[in-house]
Each structure stands twice: as structure tokens, then as C-alpha cells.
């Protein structure tokens, strides 16, 4: 029997029992569509988070004081305390050719008051370069001025929420603010901070780094943001940072440098796993569809017993009967899978229409994987009824009408 004839025969049989065929197609289609849609949702989440992070700039390095946990190793020798990361350290980094900008950060919390209102607020000391590094938008006024970071003037830039809370809707520009025991003039208000995941810029007060150091009475930096000249120079910049700090800290490697890429890779891995997990949930519905195919095919075999007996009487060997029923199962699975892919694509397009910011298209592997899995399920669960058919006794089968 040629393949074309086999397909034709199976097609006729499926066509002859429309209700049954439609049901099985539907079950398969739902399974495949749920794989495609669920992985699409997972991918949308992954893409969204990755987008958020790369909007922070993938040419960024973060320098933290202290060694990150080394793998085991002896505890630090007595008497060796990690040195502070200082403003001088940060400024020294600028001399490296691979480094474009640095933004030292000092962070602390103090009471902030103006016009009789007071609240506790996070104050961040930094430099003018923080603006381009973090792609800050200014709503009114301007950002901290450039100039010698060691001698900052008593100026500050407010987040939107802080401005609203202290000035109650009125413009804060030009007003004076009390930060602990110091006073400073508001020269700018931050605009929509939009996509920023790590710190809530809306709630911050930004001051020159030296002002913050004096305010919190510490020379130590919380961390330093470093921008490389180019993405490709990240590794050179990292080496530059380590070498510079080592030279300035008596040969001690006492800072940790984190690349944005490393963080991105971690998130990518976590969210990729999540996508796999929800895809797996979808795959379970394919197994359910496979079991349904098995049930319905078993009914089909018993309903078509006389036909099977006839095929045998006409000289079809058991293998051929097996092949015919497997072909039916395979066609059902394939047809259902294709239908499911179409439904999945439609569903993704529909979701996309409601949430235009997100892209719900499934990852490239999802469609072929769902297709293969559907086919596998169809054949696996079709095998039992097909074997049942192939093992029928032709005489007994023919006697059934």
C-alpha cells in the first residue's frame, strides 16, 4: 500500500466520522494552542523584564566596596579590614581609556523639611554624570551642575513624589529645603522616571556627592556606577577598575565589579526556566488530548470491527491494519496541532491588541516542539487501539456487523 493511498484511506475514515474527528481535533488543538500561548506569555514576561534592564544601559558596570564572597577560601587575615571606596578612587577611574563616565553614589536617610512640612527621605549624593548614565529626565529646572565633585554647592534635585509631598502641588524650583542640619536650594525636579526597576527615583532627593558625604559624615561611597566607552570595552573597563583600585589600595582586590550583562544573564536564565515551566503545563494538556485520542480510537476500532475483518479477508496483513490506524491517529494529531498553532497565533495577536506594549509571540522552539509532541502523543496513544485492531481475529471480526 503506497503512502498516498494510506493517507487517502485514513482521510476517508476520518471524514466518515465527522463528530468524532472534530472532537479529537479540538482536544489536540487546545493542547497545542495552550503550549504556544503559555510559552508566549512567559516570553512576553521575559522580554519585558529584559527590556527594563537594558534600558538601564548595557554598557554599565557597578563597583561595590568589599570582595564578593570568594569560593570558600580562608577568612581574611587579622588586621586587614576592607578599605572604603572613596571619591578619589572613583575619580581615578576616569583616567582609564575604556571608561567614559563615573557616578559615585552615597546613600542615606535623613529628615527633609520645607515650608513647615517634614518627612524622612532617602538622599542620594552623586555627580552630574549620574544624569546621562541613568538616562534621567528632568521635568523642570536642571540636574546637578558639573564641576569639581569634591566641592559641591548646596543644591538639590527632587523626585516628583517628594516635591508633591513637601510643596503640595506648588513648584519647588528655587525654594530652600532642609536636609538634616543643612539647607539647599532646589534647582530641578525629576520627570517621569518611567522604566526603572531598581530604585524609586520619584522618592529621592539628589544632592552633590560631597554634600551627602558631609551630611552622613562618611568618606565611604555606597557604590560607583561606571559607564564604558562602548559595550565592547566592558571587559577592559572591568580590568581597568580592578587594576586602578588595586594600585590605590596597597595591592588589595577589595572591590566587586558587577556587569549589567551578568545580571541580565541571571534574569534571562530564571525567566527562560519559567517559560519552560509554563510550557510544560501546556504540554500536560497535550497528554490529556493523547488520552482522548486513545479512547476515541478504541471506540472507533470496536465500531469498525467488521471493516477491519474485511480488510484482513482482502489480504491486509496485521502490520497494514496497524499502519492504517496509526496513520489516522497521526493525521488527527497533525491536523489538531496545525489548528492549535493557528489558534495560538490568533490568541497571541488578540492579547497583543489588548496589551500593545508586550509581544506575546511564542519562542521559536515552541511551535515545532508542540507539533512534535502532539504527533508523538497521537502516535503513542494511537498505538494501543491500532495494535488492538491488528490483533483482531478476522473470522470473529467479520461476524460482527
Amino acid at each position, binding site marked *: *500500500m503506497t503512502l498516498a493511498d494510506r493517507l487517502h484511506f485514513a482521510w476517508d475514515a476520518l471524514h466518515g466520522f465527522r463528530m468524532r474527528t472534530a472532537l479529537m481535533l479540538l482536544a489536540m488543538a487546545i493542547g497545542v494552542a495552550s503550549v504556544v500561548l503559555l510559552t508566549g506569555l512567559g516570553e512576553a514576561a521575559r522580554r519585558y523584564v529584559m527590556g527594563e534592564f537594558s534600558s538601564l544601559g548595557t554598557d554599565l558596570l557597578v563597583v561595590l566596596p568589599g570582595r564578593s564572597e570568594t569560593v570558600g577560601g580562608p577568612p581574611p587575615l587579622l588586621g586587614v579590614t576592607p578599605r572604603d571606596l572613596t571619591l578619589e578612587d572613583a575619580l581615578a577611574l576616569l583616567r582609564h581609556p575604556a571608561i567614559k563616565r563615573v557616578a559615585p553614589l552615597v546613600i542615606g536617610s535623613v529628615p527633609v523639611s520645607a515650608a513647615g512640612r517634614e518627612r524622612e527621605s532617602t538622599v542620594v549624593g552623586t555627580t552630574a554624570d549620574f544624569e546621562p548614565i541613568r538616562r534621567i529626565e528632568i521635568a523642570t529646572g536642571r540636574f546637578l551642575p558639573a564641576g569639581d565633585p569634591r566641592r559641591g554647592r548646596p543644591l538639590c534635585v527632587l523626585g516628583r513624589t517628594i516635591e508633591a509631598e513637601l510643596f503640595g502641588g506648588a513648584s519647588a524650583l528655587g525654594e530652600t529645603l532642609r536636609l538634616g542640619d543643612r539647607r539647599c536650594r532646589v534647582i530641578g525636579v525629576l520627570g517621569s522616571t518611567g522604566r526603572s526597576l531598581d530604585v524609586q527615583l520619584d522618592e529621592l532627593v539628589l544632592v552633590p556627592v560631597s554634600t551627602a558625604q558631609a551630611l552622613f559624615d562618611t568618606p565611604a561611597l555606597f557604590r560607583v556606577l561606571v559607564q564604558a566607552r562602548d559595550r565592547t570595552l566592558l571587559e577592559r573597563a572591568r580590568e581597568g577598575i580592578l587594576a586602578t583600585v588595586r594600585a590605590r589600595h596597597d595591592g588589595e582586590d577589595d572591590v566587586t565589579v558587577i556587569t549589567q550583562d551578568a545580571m541580565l544573564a541571571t534574569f534571562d536564565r530564571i525567566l527562560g526556566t519559567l517559560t519552560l515551566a509554563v510550557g510544560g503545563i501546556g504540554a500536560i494538556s497535550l497528554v490529556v488530548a493523547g488520552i482522548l485520542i486513545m479512547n476515541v480510537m478504541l471506540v472507533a476500532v470496536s465500531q469498525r470491527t467488521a471493516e477491519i475483518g474485511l480488510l484482513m479477508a482482502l489480504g491486509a496483513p496485521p502490520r497494514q491494519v496497524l499502519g492504517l490506524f496509526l496513520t489516522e491517529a497521526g493525521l488527527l494529531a497533525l491536523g489538531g496541532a496545525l489548528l492549535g498553532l493557528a489558534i495560538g497565533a490568533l490568541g497571541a495577536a488578540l492579547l497583543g491588541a489588548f496589551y500593545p506594549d508586550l509581544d506575546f509571540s511564542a519562542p521559536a522552539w515552541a511551535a515545532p516542539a508542540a507539533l512534535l509532541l502532539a504527533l508523538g502523543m497521537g502516535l503513542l496513544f494511537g498505538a494501543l487501539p491500532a495494535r488492538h485492531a491488528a490483533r483482531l481475529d478476522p473470522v470473529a471480526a467479520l461476524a460482527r456487523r
Partner: protein
Amino acid sequence: MLELAGIGRDFEVGEQTVHALRDVELNVAAGEYLSIMGPSGSGKSTLLNVIGLLDRPTRGRYCLDGTDVTVLDGAARAELRRDKVGFVFQFFHLVPRLTAAENVGLPLVLAGVEPDERRVRVARALERLDLVSRASHRPDQLSGGQRQRVAIARATIMEPRLLLADEPTGNLDRHSGHEVLELIEALHASGLTLLVVTHDPEIGRRAGRRIHVVDGRVEEQVP
């Protein structure tokens, strides 16, 4: 052509053993026309199924064209059945979703014959059995006589040497039954070996050789 020696066929029904065939000795030469008669439940259909390789005897030796077929496996028996044996059943056994032409061509499809050749052979068979105008009809659109003619066309499309008919007229009125019988006898006239199981003594008498089956034993009726 057929040599049956000491053939027995037992069926286990619960605790009991039913001896459907007992110690059957039968030789049939190529081109003979046999009628098989006997009371209901005597083993006529079982005998025909054994001869047509649909059923395996429990014991004995059966040679078809000189080869011992009792030792062959299922696939080999299926191949012999496909190439050498044509069946005509009381209840026609047409596939309801296929047209008359498709039903006739089914053995060719199963045998893997190319579509072009298939079309030619099916057209010839339909013409021979006067079914051309019914080629695209489905079984439920045909009369009983027409259905049995489709079944005969299907049974002969592989050009078998042996035609086995189990009560071919049992489900037909007198007129169509007569028509069908004449078609079958015409096939015998053209050289086929023919075995017909029947309850109708009138039909039984038309055969060259008459076999009587009683309680699983075969007796030759001497005319």
C-alpha cells in the same frame, strides 16, 4: 489445488470444547465447482474460513497449490489470501463510506497497485458486472443485488484462482439471488475454482460436486 488431511477445528467456549470440524479429508482440483450444504451450526462457514486462510485449523494438514499453509505466519497467510482467494459474503461487507468503485478497488489499494493501473482494472470489473452507472454510488444507495455484484467485482479484482462464497444469495430475493448466482457460475466457467456454501438445495444441485457437512464431518454426496 486444495488438499485437506485430518483437519480439525476446536473452539473453547468456557469449559466446553466445540468441535466445529472433525477429521476433514477433502481434495479439490483446480476448476472444480463445489456446493457445501448442511444444517445450521454444522461447520460450513468454519470449513470455508479454513480453506480461505482466514482461520487456522487446530490440527491436520492443509496444502494450497502444493504448499503447506498451516505452518505459515499471519503476514504470509494474508499475502496468499490477497493473491489467491476471493471471498463473497452473505452480508456483502462493503465499506459504507466508500463508493462502489472504491470498494471494488480496495484490494488493489491494499496490494499497492499504482493508481493508473487501478483505474483501468476497476473500470473493467465494473463493466463486466454491469455497474458502470453505479460507480460513484455508496453502498446505501445500492440495491442488495447491486451490492453483491460490487462484492463479486471486489472478490475477483485480484484475479484469484479460488472463489469462496458463504451463502451469497442468503440476503437477496429470488430474482437477484439468481442473477448473482449466474455471475458467480460464469466466473467458474472462465476457470475459477468455486466453493459455495448454501442452504438452498436447488442451488446446491447446480454444482458439479456436492459436499455435506454434518456435525463437523464432511460427507461427499454421490449424485
